């Protein structure tokens, strides 16, 4: 089999897939009598045409980076973690409990504690499926899906019966104390004397997400643990031959994965909402699967793919607001992107391989 050059594999293939997805989206938009060019302009302007747009795009991207990394770490161990949604839900609970526990004097103190809370809760939620897989052979795909539902139900119960402030009719926690409010990116730009944007939700968590990308890269490609995770993901029998414990790697990889998903709550719960509400993850756990797939489980790819999906989310919201294109079509466009960059990847890859193979020959 001909191998593609690395740059073609990492850049050309997704770009062509993306172009195909947009082309088909354009046909669909034409078919309902709208102007695809105007739609694209609305999306681009809305998502990246202003600091306001960027503020939302980066906010969404931050969520997707965390869940994308979560899916990727598990994928390197050969585990398909579909439970990032539930793990992020539980991470939200962890963050909320930390934020409400103390009258935090300053966000810089609250943030590390909240990160720890989110990561611990997310990891704990991944631990049970991991343990069942490692010890009992219950497939992690099935159990993590089920744990998403359990997480949603658990959050529902906790918000209605435990954390709801007395007298409130809203299934949500009280607002977090002011000392837990994270600085937005525009606050931070202002602090260094740059005027950038205004009240948008992108916050300091974005920088944490970037740091997480770096740390995951180090973990996977530079540490003995990462070596073992990758080896186990490629061949369980070889891993056993090399003295790598399948039980240990399954559990450890899922713990890291769950912790990363749980960390997402620092962005959406602590950074944006300032309280814990129902369904606060809004599907970001599932988008993480597409992001990891498109980013080839590499942190840099995940970063770029998360930006793309942030763009699609924000651009799609703008499109629904400022055009006659129905909201459902946004989902269609997002689905096409996932379809082409993920599921139909080989459709683009194989002709490319033939092309490169001929050139090399």
């Amino acid at each position, binding site marked *: 089999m001909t191998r593609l050059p690395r740059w073609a594999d990492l850049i050309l293939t997704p770009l062509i897939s993306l172009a195909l997805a947009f082309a088909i989206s354009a046909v669909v938009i034409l078919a309902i009598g709208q102007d695809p060019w105007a739609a694209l302009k609305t999306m681009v302007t809305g998502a990246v045409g202003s600091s306001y747009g960027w503020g939302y795009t980066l906010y969404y991207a931050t969520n997707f980076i965390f869940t994308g990394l979560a899916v990727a770490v598990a994928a390197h161990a050969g585990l398909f973690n579909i439970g990032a949604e539930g793990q992020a839900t539980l991470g939200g609970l962890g963050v909320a409990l930390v934020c409400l526990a103390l009258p935090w004097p300053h966000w810089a103190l609250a943030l590390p504690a909240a990160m720890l809370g989110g990561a611990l809760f997310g990891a704990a939620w991944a631990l049970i499926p991991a343990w069942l897989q490692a010890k009992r052979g219950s497939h992690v795909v099935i159990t993590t899906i089920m744990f998403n539902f359990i997480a949603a139900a658990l959050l529902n119960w906790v918000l209605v019966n435990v954390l709801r402030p007395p007298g409130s009719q809203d299934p949500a926690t009280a607002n977090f104390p002011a000392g837990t409010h994270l600085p937005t990116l525009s606050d931070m730009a202002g602090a260094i004397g740059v005027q950038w944007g205004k009240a948008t939700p992108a916050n300091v968590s974005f920088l944490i997400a970037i740091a997480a990308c770096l740390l995951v890269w180090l973990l996977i490609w530079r*540490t003995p643990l990462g070596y073992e995770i990758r*080896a186990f993901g490629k*061949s369980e029998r*070889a891993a056993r031959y090399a*003295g790598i414990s399948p039980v240990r790697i399954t559990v450890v990889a899922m713990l890291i994965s769950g912790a990363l998903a749980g960390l997402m709550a620092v962005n959406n719960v602590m950074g944006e909402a300032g309280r814990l509400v129902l369904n606060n993850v809004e599907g970001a756990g599932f988008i993480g699967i597409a992001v990891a797939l498109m980013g080839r489980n590499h942190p840099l790819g995940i970063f770029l793919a998360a930006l793309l999906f942030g763009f699609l989310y924000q651009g799609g919201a703008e499109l629904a607001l400022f055009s006659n294109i129905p909201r459902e079509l946004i989902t269609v466009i997002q689905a096409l992107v996932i379809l082409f960059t993920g599921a139909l990847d080989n459709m683009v890859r194989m002709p490319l391989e033939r092309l490169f193979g001929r050139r*090399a020959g």
Partner: protein
Amino acid sequence: MTATDSVAGRHAAPETASVAPAIELRGISKAFGPVQANKDISMTVPRGTIHGIVGENGAGKSTLMSILYGFYRPDAGQILIGGRDAGITDSQSAIRAGIGMVFQHFKLVPNMTVLENVILGAEDSALLAPSLSRARGELRRLAEEYELQVDPDAVVETLSVGHQQRVEILKALYRHADILILDEPTGVLTPAEAEHLFRILRGLREQGKTIIVITHKLREVMEITDNVSVMRRGEMVATVRTADTSPEQLAELMVGRKVLLRVDKAPARPGAPVLEVVRLEMVDRTGVTRLRGVDLTVRAGEIVGIAGVSGNGQTQLMEILGGYAEPGARVTGAVRMNGADLPLTRTDAAARRRAGIGNIPEDRQVEGLIMDFSCWENTVFGHHRDPEYQSGPLMDNDRVRQRAERLIAQFDVRPANCHLAARNFSGGNQQKIVVAREIEEKPALLLVGQPTRGVDIGAIEFIHRRLIEMRDAGAAILLVSVELDEIMGLSDRIVVMFDGRIMGERQPDQTSAAELGMLMAGVEGGGIPPAQGQPRAHPDARPDLAKGIL
């Protein structure tokens, strides 16, 4: 034996004049990207002969046969079957042209019966019953004609490997194959099964069938073929009458230089026992008893070879010793390393390595290497947590790479590029990576499983020499191989395993392939003394070759 005797007379006169040859290849070329797999290959196979094709891995044998069987289209060249252009474009047209192929890995549906497997894809009506009854009659006829007895109603997975192979041959004959291609047909057979196969092939030749055998076992080429073609690096370097050549000459043609077929070694000087296995029993998680009280000692400075047909407990023994037996198995008995008991209940291959046990596993592609990892990453596989490869919390990849480059040079791994993924190396070079890694750690005990399976002659010679060097340096080596010649050539002592038991121990210079073969088949005491037996039917008829590595 009369059939075999009459065939022997034809051995020297394979040519059937004035009839168009069964197969004629003219100028076949095939490239995969930059790799020229077949270069202008021409070959003629006369009707009613057995034709051997030998060559190292990657020499292009499989590509050539795949072209003949319609899997690949050649870039240039012509295939004539019976003198006419057969127009082979896919395997369907190859079958129509009368070509049948028996693959190394059988293409049978394990949970279907022999009969169902035979008609699979050749059902000739919407209802199965008429096809089945026709096939039943046809099978009976074929069975009588060619000694191809198989119970048509047996489920394939219950059959022995030798019988499964017969089903493959029957499948081809049922489709009216006149030309039969067999790829490494004896790789999985016991010596007796191989002998039976040869009888079948001679019978088929008697009936005018043409047979092509791809193999790397030169002894078999000498025994069964009429003519032999040698391939090297995509080219056909020679086609000779088997009677006019010798294994040494064929090996030289294959490799392109003189090859030492015999393992050259001094007598062993065994020291203190390093490994002691006492009454080792193992029941796997499905409840099957795999080891039934194995007793075994390996001393420093000696190679103990375990002969046996694969699947008789060798794998389980090696996995237990290496500390990576499948979880859930029940193991009893004792394993001592330099007198100290090793824990058997907990499997921990890393601890075994620290205890000084090196391990070249039976299946390098599934166990010994991570195929997608680069060569340099693979050179620390299993030792990746050793302190010398760490710097702080990270792995010292620079150091690992430098070491990998040194190993590549020392073990002559080709291509000498430690950044290539393991899967991009040939089988022999993959094995060299594993051997280099395990030998480099200087273990007191080295477990070696199938060290040369699928490995080129040149690399076999190299690997064998390294193992002997290790032995001479005082290491204890436990060798498992299904290649009897390898066992006989390398070992200082031979034990034979059958059904999870040690059947007996022999000295390599005081036994014969025939005697070991009987032990391997579970016959107590080896049945026939080495001096007797049936000379022509057994490999030891060629004492000059019995010790060879091929």
